[in-house]
């Protein structure tokens, strides 16, 4: 847990859940496991606020609790999980992916589930249907069954899964001793402990989405409360079965997309389609952490290829052998049976992609010549300064400058190998080298900081223009109410003109800035995703 991660977690939580939650979570991140009373005291927050914040965090799976250190009688301790909090940054991408794969319905389902942490199927179906109906033309509405179909599709493809059953703190095995304490802390790995996570419950949901009329709003609280009461009373037969977004599955999808687009840009569209087909075929059969996909025979691949590409069998074989020959080594051959067995080397692909990311950072930041040196060191592992100059064909003076700059930025490491035990500089080899894994970790921290910076800047921009934003919101509200009451057009323009031209310009600039910052955050998140998956995959393969 680094300072940059904590900072970013804090910023994300502040934006989504407000300052109290942020305070509690950051405190937990900084200090590790804490009891409820400890948190309340050290953050000097009222106990009920801390409780509420912990509820929010637990609802979203961002904090865990476990029995205290002092045996079963000890106070329960709470623990924040930074990985889960950092996922907030990727929410837009999850939602967007759901939209591209399953349309508006899928988008709204994933959005709802993400917004609420976890929810029942019936609950999400109802809300989504209502929201869709609200956006439709007057007189039309969304049928529940359609939303149910979309939901079950998402479950079938494992994008949404059941929440693992909550282990009852009190009922945990009373295995005493310090060794057993770690056991409940580890999250129950869903693969073995929870066989039913993709089974849909039998839900009886009939009806259509209800339209919320603007006039109803005025009645406010009362009606909302009434509706809530109604919802709870008519049980749909799935109470207690909660669903959450399966981040691993989404990440698998992102990874596959990254691999496919890398193949497309290095080779051509057709090769990338073949790789896409291979990845899709093994989507469900390959575990998320596997080093390569299950072997697929050329026959199988041929049959699974969408007919629209019109690739004939011999051409497919040529493409496959080209992919195998390519120095990227994304695709490997594992056997000869069935017309040749092929696998996609997932770890290798991630390593190559993250290497390309590192190279790209060096290239953009220090120029293409430094990137040449960087790649040279990646290829040749250890080189002396003289060798670097000769291989890269860069004059000694410039090469030295670049090497030292890279060294001072920790992108390149220096290894001393003394010929004599006294480490005399004249009798020592100085070898430059690049270690991809530590360098990736370094860049990951840079990314966290960069996103944090972007978010802070965004908050600053909105704060600076707060008055203006409030004014425009007020005027929009007035306009809406005037329109609803059927005001004269002249009246409307009069209200509209309350925002002066320079103010309008300023608002537009602000919108432009915020959009730019937002999209940059998402772009940096793509880098974060690649580096994170590379680091995780290298750790698991060890």
């Amino acid at each position, binding site marked *: 847990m680094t300072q940059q991660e904590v900072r970013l977690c804090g910023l994300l939580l502040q934006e989504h859940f407000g300052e109290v939650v942020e305070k509690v979570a950051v405190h937990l991140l900084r200090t590790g496991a804490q009891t409820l009373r400890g948190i309340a005291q050290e953050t000097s927050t009222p106990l009920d606020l801390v409780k509420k914040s912990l509820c929010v965090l637990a609802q979203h799976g961002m904090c865990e609790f476990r029995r205290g250190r002092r045996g079963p009688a000890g106070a329960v301790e709470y623990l924040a999980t930074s990985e889960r909090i950092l996922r907030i940054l990727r929410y837009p991408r999850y939602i967007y992916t759901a939209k591209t794969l399953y349309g508006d319905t899928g988008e709204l389902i994933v959005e709802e589930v993400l917004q609420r942490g976890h929810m029942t199927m019936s609950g999400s179906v109802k809300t989504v249907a209502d929201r869709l109906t609200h956006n439709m033309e007057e007189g039309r509405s969304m049928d529940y069954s359609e939303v149910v179909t979309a939901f079950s599709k998402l479950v079938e493809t494992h994008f949404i899964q059941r929440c693992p059953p909550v282990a009852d703190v009190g009922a945990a095995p009373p295995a005493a001793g310090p060794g057993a304490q770690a056991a409940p802390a580890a999250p129950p790995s869903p693969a073995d402990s929870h066989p039913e996570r993709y089974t849909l419950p039998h839900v009886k949901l009939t009806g259509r989405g209800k339209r919320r009329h603007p006039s109803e709003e005025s009645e406010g609280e009362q009606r909302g409360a009434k509706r809530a009461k109604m919802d709870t009373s008519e049980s749909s037969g799935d109470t207690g079965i909660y669903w959450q977004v399966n981040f691993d599955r989404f990440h698998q999808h992102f990874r596959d997309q990254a691999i496919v687009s890398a193949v497309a840009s290095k080779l051509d569209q057709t090769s990338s389609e073949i790789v896409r087909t291979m990845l899709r075929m093994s989507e469900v059969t390959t575990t998320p952490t596997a080093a390569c996909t299950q072997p697929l025979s050329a026959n199988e691949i041929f049959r699974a290829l969408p007919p629209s590409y019109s690739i004939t069998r011999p051409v497919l074989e040529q493409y496959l052998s080209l992919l195998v020959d390519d120095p990227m080594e994304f695709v490997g051959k594992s056997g000869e049976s069935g017309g040749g067995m092929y696998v996609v080397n997932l770890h290798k692909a991630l390593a190559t*992609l993250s290497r390309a990311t590192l190279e790209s950072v060096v*290239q953009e930041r220090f120029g293409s010549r430094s990137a040449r040196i960087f*790649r*040279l060191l990646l290829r040749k592992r250890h080189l002396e300064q003289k060798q670097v100059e000769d291989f890269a*064909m*860069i004059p000694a003076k410039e090469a030295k400058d670049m090497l030292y700059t890279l060294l001072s930025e920790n992108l390149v490491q220096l290894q001393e190998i003394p010929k004599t035990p006294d480490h005399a500089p004249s009798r020592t080899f100085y070898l430059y080298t690049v270690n991809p894994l530590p360098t990736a970790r370094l860049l990951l921290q840079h990314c966290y900081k960069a996103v*944090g*910076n972007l978010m*802070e800047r965004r908050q600053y921009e909105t704060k600076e223009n707060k008055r203006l934003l409030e004014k425009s919101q007020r005027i929009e509200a007035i306009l809406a109410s005037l329109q609803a009451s059927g005001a004269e057009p002249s009246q409307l323009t009069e209200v509209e003109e309350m925002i002066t031209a320079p103010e309008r310009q300023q608002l537009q600039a602000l919108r432009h800035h915020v959009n730019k910052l937002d999209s940059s955050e998402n772009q*940096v998140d793509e880098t974060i995703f690649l580096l994170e998956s590379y680091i995780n995959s290298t750790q698991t393969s060890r």
Partner: protein
Amino acid sequence: MAEVKVKQELTDPVEIENRIKDLCQQFPHGITDQVIQNDMPHVEAQQRAMAINRLLSVGQLDLLRNSTGLLYRLKDTQSASKMKGSDNQEKLVYQIIEDAGNKGIWSRDIRYKSNLPLTEINKILKNLESKKLIKAVKSVAASKKKVYMLYNLQPDRSVTGGAWYSDQDFESEFVEVLNQQCFKFLQGKAEVARDSKQSPMVQRNSSFATSHEVWKYICELGISKVELSMDDIETILNTLIYDGKVEMSVIAAKEGTAGCVDGQMKLYRGVNPIIQSTGLVKTPCGLCPVFDDCHEGGEISPSTCIYMTEWLDF
């Protein structure tokens, strides 16, 4: 009659000397005593020895020792004539420089080898230089270091740095231009292959170019004033590999094919990068020179960042 005359003439010491010199010219690697004996069976050993001694003392002949015995060799007449009027020290220094060949030798190393004082050596070197017997060449390895070699020698690549140096300066612009031209050539080839609409295997194979082809293309372009070797071009192509723009593969080839070295042929082809620039470097923070000093509330902070302001207004 003629035979008798020859025999008579051979007895003359001058004639014997000339005859020995002729023999030496026939065998530039040197002759043994036996060869002289076989050539002039009638000359007595004493006369022969006298003639050889005279030649040696005049400095026209060199006495060398090798595994089979003593060898006589004609001294370089040119250098012999040039060395005229120089003393033994000068000859010694000259010898040392001659031994160093086209790699040259540093004056300090001459001192170690000759055991002469440095001032003396400097004097001798100046002397020899003015006679145009030797020359001083600046080494690229260390710009202050001068090495000496015989006047008529072409300095070694290690001294001049090969085609990439002119006057001890690395011609980085020249290298850059060649780098770009090679890439253009390979890229063009890859594009033609891509547009050919042939089967993917043929497309890939026709995008390859051997180093010989690249070399020929560069030579025909005539951008280089100096003669470039195929090795030079391969070094350039290697820099393209390190730029991530080119891939190399080695195939076996029949000896004698153009561009074939030791039964191997190096094939190069231009490739596309696997990713566009990554997300991080699309933000100002990814390129910021003061990234490490940036903190909220500090002198440099995201809220007041001028790079960010410029980028936002862009």
